[in-house]
């Protein structure tokens, strides 16, 4: 069931033009073109390309074409005009959510005479514990949709680390794509390059959709998407530089700078929890009690008072938050340490909403005593269920 992972979601994402630059370096053919940050730059690039060009909005989301983010210009003047319309516009696609994404960068590319569109991708298949190359003769369409409708249309070859990805596997995929003659050898070279790019950059996804067969029989990556494994960023400083902070939620960017795992959601109950599983379970029980979590926040096992303070500040920076639930199961993290951290945090952060704390584990009595004696607006709860009930009631009252 590998197509499940075809969209890997929240890894390090980059723009289409950056993915194409990387793929070109590994020997994959991409259309000639460049990135533009202004209408003037768009015009210059278009005239270098001979005038006729494609103007593509660069946001971290798919479905741009249907949303009006991809347009053809007949000449450089038109490219400039289109760029003027697109830069600053908010693009709403099925992948951006209703709030959309603001366009700040454009890719200006040559147009191609396209004979056929196909699909090629690489991602991790968790079941096999191996990366897999996926090929589909229908390109330019939603691949998950194809997978649902007609799973046999997608052919898969695993990339075993021992022999590596082999030419016979690539040939099999090329025939599946319906390629013939010279095209097959070209496709084999391209797929080997693609696997190399995936491995060399510690990517979690490389997707070419569509991979086009041109009227002259060439194979060109018309669109490209790459995401990277953030656990491997330590050996790829160059990938870190490709991040576009404009594409990320500012609170999430700040949280990650403090090594906090924070994801903003739309509810009104702020959550601070240690451990990802317990944090998800806490969100679940809030919802079961009729509330809506405002965020996911894992302060981690080794939370210091400094980190607790930062976490609280980030939580409360979300104006939707009406009450906060602190759910800590202290194992290694002692609850007296956590309580002191909270008290210290409260002296630095304005606590504008009531808090409910559920503390369990090592040194819990000491922790509860510290919180009571500090005189904070904290309701102590007995267990997860009691905590969820109390915090949902408090949030509803405000």
């Amino acid at each position, binding site marked *: 069931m590998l197509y499940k992972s075809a969209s890997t979601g929240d890894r390090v994402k980059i723009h289409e033009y950056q993915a194409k630059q990387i793929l070109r370096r590994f020997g994959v053919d991409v259309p000639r073109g460049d990135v533009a940050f202004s209408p003037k730059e768009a015009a210059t690039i278009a005239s270098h390309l001979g005038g006729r060009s494609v103007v593509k909005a660069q946001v971290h989301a798919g479905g741009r074409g249907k949303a009006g983010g991809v347009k053809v210009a007949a000449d450089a003047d038109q490219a400039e005009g289109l760029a003027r319309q697109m830069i600053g516009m908010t693009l709403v696609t099925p992948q951006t959510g209703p709030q959309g994404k603001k366009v700040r960068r454009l890719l200006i590319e040559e147009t191609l005479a396209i004979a056929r569109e196909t699909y090629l991708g690489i991602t991790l298949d968790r079941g096999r514990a191996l990366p897999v190359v996926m090929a589909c003769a229908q390109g330019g369409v939603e691949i998950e949709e194809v997978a649902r409708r007609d799973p046999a249309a997608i052919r898969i070859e695993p990339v075993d680390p021992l022999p590596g990805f082999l030419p016979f596997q690539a040939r099999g995929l090329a025939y599946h794509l319906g390629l013939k003659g010279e095209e097959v050898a070209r496709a084999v070279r391209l797929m080997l390059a693609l696997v190399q790019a995936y491995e060399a950059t510690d990517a979690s996804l490389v997707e070419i959709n569509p991979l086009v067969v041109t009227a002259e029989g060439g194979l060109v990556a018309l669109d490209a998407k790459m995401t990277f494994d953030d656990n491997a960023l330590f050996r790829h400083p160059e990938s870190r530089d490709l991040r576009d902070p404009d594409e990320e939620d500012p609170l999430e960017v700040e949280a990650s700078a403090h090594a906090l795992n924070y994801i903003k959601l739309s509810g009104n109950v702020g959550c601070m929890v240690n451990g990802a*599983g317990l944090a998800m379970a806490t969100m679940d029980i809030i919802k079961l009690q009729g509330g809506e979590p405002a965020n996911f926040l894992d302060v981690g096992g080794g939370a210091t008072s400094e980190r607790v303070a930062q976490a609280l500040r980030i939580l409360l920076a979300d104006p939707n938050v009406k009450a906060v639930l602190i759910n800590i*199961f202290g194992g290694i993290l002692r609850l007296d340490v956590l309580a002191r951290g909270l008290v210290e945090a409260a002296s630095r952060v304005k606590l504008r909403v009531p808090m409910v704390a559920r503390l369990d584990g090592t040194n819990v009595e000491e922790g509860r005593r510290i919180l009571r004696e500090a005189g904070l607006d904290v309701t102590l709860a007995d267990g997860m269920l009691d905590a969820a009930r109390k915090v949902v009631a408090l949030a509803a009252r405000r």
Partner: protein
Amino acid sequence: MSVLVDAGSRVVVQGITGREGTFHARQCREYGTKVVAGVTPGRGGTDHDGVPVFDTVREAVERQGSDVSLIFVPPAAAADAILEAAAAGILLAICITEGIPTADMVKVKAAIGRGTTRLVGPNCPGVISPGKCKVGIMPGSIHKPGPVGVVSRSGTLTYEAVAQLTRRGLGQSTCIGIGGDPIIGTSFVDALRLFRDDPETRAVVMIGEIGGDAEEAAAQVARQELKVPVVAFVAGQTAPPGRRMGHAGAIIAGGHGTAAEKMAALQAAGVQVLRSPAEIGEAVQRVLG
């Protein structure tokens, strides 16, 4: 009885001289675990807290008879540490390290599959057989010996479940933290089969998460192979698609890997599926009668 580790396990701690290694090796010993060796390259011949330290895992095996390894090596060197343990003939390697690159784990998994070493983790709290042996970072005090097997992708949520069991007087045979990464050594299926073959495990608690389809695979095994009741909770019922919830493995991708799908598969397999994480202890009490 118990699975994976017991009072006879002889543990080597890889990365014993680091901050985490030092702290947790001490905690494991205080629990009663036989920590017979430590490994830190360059520190061989010294002793650390009274534990002899070796340069290589092979020496720890040859000189101290280590058969279980507990790994605290940082992410960039963790794959090497796991494979060193395997090459030295360690039977069970438990890797706590969080943040190992996926590409490294692809190689580890492929290499481990050719040998006899079992890997638990990475990015997990470890394994405990209460009253006998603790090889991990879980707080020993919340556990109690007894008939319930626990297997989980999560850390603190497992502690939550265990505390609920212990509070009701329900002890545990073994608790296995399999880890939150996309590629792990021991799966739910493997853990369920271990419990299947343990005559003293009379019920199993399984704690899943969004992402992947390991819970669906486990559902098959629960239905076809397990004679004891299984109680399950899947965290992330309210998680939005496309967002990675802390654990590298916890993500709903392309509309798949949702809690709803997993819960339905488990329910269809006759597993007692809970909507609330607060009901775990109560549910186990009910199925044990």
